[in-house]
């Protein structure tokens, strides 16, 4: 091959994606080189893939994420999205109930105070905390902040996110809890 990636005419090209094996490209030596079976009227191997698969993809078991703690943690973090959706639905339900009047609201609060519901919501809270902490911890890796051309240290980005979490929580609690 030349420096400009050109290939001399008549020479087989390197075997690569979408191309065939060099032996198949040297068509002038049919008696000596590999010839496709169907060209000779023979049986075609059903397993045979012309031009080879484009990439090698090993089979991965469904429960691959049980093999290591880090994988399990990754999937657990991803699954906390279900708790996020549940909390959003519950928030909408609360808004509807408050809009309907005090009787509906008190009935809803009564349901919320049942031990089984409280236990479930404590579990949801633990999942939400896991969601928050893991997402805030990846923030420095996802966000690259630059001030005056210099990169803000990852630790500062992390602390900034935790500070924002504390401020948001304090403001919401202040707005919702009776003074």
């Amino acid at each position, binding site marked *: 091959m030349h420096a400009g990636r050109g290939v001399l005419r008549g020479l087989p090209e390197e075997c690569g994606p979408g191309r065939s094996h060099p032996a198949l490209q040297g068509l002038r030596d049919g008696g000596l080189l590999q010839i496709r079976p169907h060209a000779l009227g023979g049986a075609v191997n059903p397993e045979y893939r012309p031009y080879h698969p484009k990439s090698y993809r090993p089979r991965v078991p469904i429960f*691959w994420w049980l093999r290591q703690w880090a994988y399990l943690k990754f999937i657990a973090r*991803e*699954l906390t999205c279900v708790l996020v959706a549940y909390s*959003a639905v519950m928030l*909408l339900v609360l*808004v509807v109930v408050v809009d309907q009047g005090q009787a509906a609201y008190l009935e809803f609060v009564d349901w919320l105070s049942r031990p089984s519901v409280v236990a479930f919501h404590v579990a949801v809270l633990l999942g*939400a905390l896991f969601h928050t902490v893991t997402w805030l911890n990846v923030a420095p890796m996802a966000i690259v902040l630059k001030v005056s051309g210099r990169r803000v240290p990852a630790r500062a980005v992390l602390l900034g996110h935790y500070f924002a*979490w504390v401020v*948001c929580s304090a403001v919401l609690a202040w707005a919702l809890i*009776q003074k």
Partner: protein
Amino acid sequence: MAALFLPVLLVVLFIASPLEWVELVTFDELQRLVRHPLMRLGLFGFVFLCFFHWAHRFRYTLYDGLQLSHLAQLIAVLTYGIATALTAAGAYVLWGLG
């Protein structure tokens, strides 16, 4: 958004208040708060982000976790479809308040 706001909302609204650990603002104040146009807009934005966050993460959890990448199109339609339906329901609820 969900990471910043959800824990405190869960603690205050769904755990501490029903158990009477804290006392929420009066019912009238709470009702006025949820009916305020800015609050409704904010709530819509919040639930929209929550539902689409769920759709996006759950989609890739099914792809990678359960090795269902061959059902990519079906999963994308289902997850984003459900998120769109829930967001539309949320918009309908919030629009009709008051």
